[in-house]
């Protein structure tokens, strides 16, 4: 005879085996139908074929410290990470003077500090911290380029991941406000502004980034008097920003057009002026639905920074190429490209995860799931 319980006092029983935990998950996700069973088995088989050689190459047979390619080949059959290890400074800092590299590291650490209050709304003392974020561009400029007590460093010595970060971060930070302004301009009722913004956007979108980079690097030289050097990195930054701003503008315009007209009219009825109604009513909603598109553009921009190699600036790929030409290290391109791919993957994947976090946080139930 089983125990007697008063109504409502029966303890919870464990769910039946197979209805919970790992087993349930397996059955639901991997073995739910004959077709899925076949797919699962095939996938596992492919992984079985691929992963062991991959791990052998990347870890177990790999050589982590070596003086040259020949030494690597003698020490093991796998990847020659010794090459990356020897060149990590170059990959990270380009030709930045070795004794000044702490400045780049400091600038990067401060970048993270400056980003936290911007990206995370529960940050303690957020209001004060944002002041630091606003100051950060000037601090970074001073740290990276020197002057005022620091050894000046020319931008031609920038390279590697540092160059990617400088172009990527500047492009992202500057193109968002510019893009929003362009999007608003394109919707403007003032004909001249609308016409200017539309033609700018359409012109930039109609031209490949590579062309703009070539214009920045070669054409401008012909217009400027000989001897004037208008910093090439600055030219590239301007071009990349304009390019990405045009795309952001179109993404934001999509968001603006998705906001029902009633919202603007309601703002008008409340007596809000144009800028207030935009800032308080329309843009918060429009930007929220534009987030995936904006982040998509940023990720594209970040990867497009590798194009600067066509005008002779050495981003990680350029550094890789210059390093691979070293007669001591020829033929290790796989290692170099895998390494650089990991860097870009980590950066772009973080951006995409952040955008998902933001979407979830801002999800206010306007759409159906």
């Amino acid at each position: 005879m089983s125990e007697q319980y008063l109504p409502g006092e029966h303890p919870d029983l464990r769910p039946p085996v197979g209805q919970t935990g790992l087993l349930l998950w397996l059955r639901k996700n991997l073995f739910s139908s004959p077709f899925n069973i076949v797919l699962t088995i095939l996938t596992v088989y492919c992984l079985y074929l691929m992963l062991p050689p991959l791990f052998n190459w990347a870890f177990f047979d790999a050589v982590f410290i070596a003086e040259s390619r020949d030494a690597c080949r003698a020490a093991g059959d796998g990847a020659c990470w010794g090459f990356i290890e020897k060149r990590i400074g170059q990959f990270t800092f380009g030709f930045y003077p070795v004794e000044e590299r702490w400045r780049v590291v400091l600038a990067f650490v401060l970048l993270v500090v400056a980003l936290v209050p911007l990206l995370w709304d529960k940050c303690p003392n957020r209001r004060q911290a944002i002041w630091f974020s606003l100051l950060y561009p000037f601090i970074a400029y001073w740290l990276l380029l020197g002057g005022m007590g620091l050894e000046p460093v020319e931008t031609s010595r920038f390279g590697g991941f540092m160059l990617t970060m400088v172009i990527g971060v500047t492009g992202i930070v500057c193109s968002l406000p510019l893009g929003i302004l362009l999007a608003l301009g394109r919707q403007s009722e003032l004909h001249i502004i609308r016409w200017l913004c539309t033609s700018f956007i359409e012109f930039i979108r109609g031209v490949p980034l590579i062309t703009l980079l070539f214009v920045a690097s070669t054409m401008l030289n012909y217009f400027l008097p000989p001897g004037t050097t208008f910093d090439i990195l600055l030219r590239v930054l301007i071009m990349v920003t304009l390019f990405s701003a045009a795309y952001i503008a179109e993404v934001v315009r999509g968001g603006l057009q998705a906001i029902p007209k009633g919202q603007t009219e309601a703002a008008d009825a409340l007596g809000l002026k144009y800028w207030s109604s935009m800032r308080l009513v329309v843009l918060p909603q429009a930007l929220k639905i534009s987030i995936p598109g904006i982040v998509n553009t940023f990720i594209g921009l970040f990867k497009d920074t590798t194009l600067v190699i066509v005008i002779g600036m050495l981003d990680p790929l350029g550094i890789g190429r210059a390093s691979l030409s070293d007669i001591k290290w020829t033929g290790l391109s796989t290692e170099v490209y895998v390494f650089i791919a990991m860097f870009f993957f980590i950066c772009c994947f973080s951006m995409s995860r952040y955008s998902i976090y933001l979407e979830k946080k801002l999800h206010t139930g306007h759409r159906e799931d």
Partner: protein
Amino acid sequence: MKTMTKLALGAAAATILLGTANAGETLDAVRAKGHVQCGISTGVAGFAFTDDKGDWQGFDPAVCKAVAAAIFGDTNAVKYTTTTGKTRFTALSSGEVDMLARNTTWTFSRDTDLKLDFVGVNYYDGQGFMVPTALGVASATELDGASVCIQTGTTTELNLADFFRINKISYEAVPIETNDEAQTNYKAGRCDVYTTDASGLAATRSTFENPDEHMLLPEIISKEPLGPLVRHGDSEWADVVRWVLNAMITAEEFGVTSENVDKMATGTENPEINRLLGSEGDLGAMIGLDKAWAWRAIKMVGNYGEVFEEFIGSETPIGLERGINGLWTKGGILYSPPFR
């Protein structure tokens, strides 16, 4: 409209004035800023690469270093600007760099139409063929019906067509975009033959797992003289670069090396060596330098042969033979005018 025209004219005049003011003064400008701004490539095995410390090395930067050594006595007094095939000439004509040393072929139109001055040749290259040893051919004339990996839109493509037409044999072109792609296709066996400049082929071959399974055919089907260049309008500066290069070649001819140059600089039996190293006469003054300019270049960088062997010679993985790049006294065509 009229003001626009005037403005444009004014700007053009200013440009011309500034341009002429610059002419003939590159050496002074270089002295004033304390370094030579040298345009190099973004990386060609053996010819230009960064070493573990992050310094540029190679057969081409060596010319820049020699010029810096001759002027400043310091091989580090060079700042490098990496240029691509598309930006190199603009960088030079716009004054962004003082000289280019980045395997650039000396051609008629580049020398004249582009208003550049090639000051000499530091490597005589030419288009060659690489085949797998297993293919069993010994000469390019046996390549009838072969599939050839070739970069589209280059002079190599035209040279190839000419060569096969002259020899009345057929081929099947496998068009590809970049050098990397060509190597991948060739290694994967999608073409029997890979053709580009012979130095490039040797460099590519050196990166293979088993270089012995591939061979270069003896035929060289085009002329690709590679050399340093400067822009038109400053012959004094061109002279400096030209004679630094000649000094390196002459030094090899007379057996002056970075090892023995100190001893030879004190005076030798050979008056030409004495003139070169400054113990007799004062050739340096004629190009605006001091007596010991060539001594410094040779001491700090080495003579032509030393540089060749260090970066691309038969002892390196690139493994290029001297061949026509030997001295004229040793069966090659390297020939420096006399120091007199």
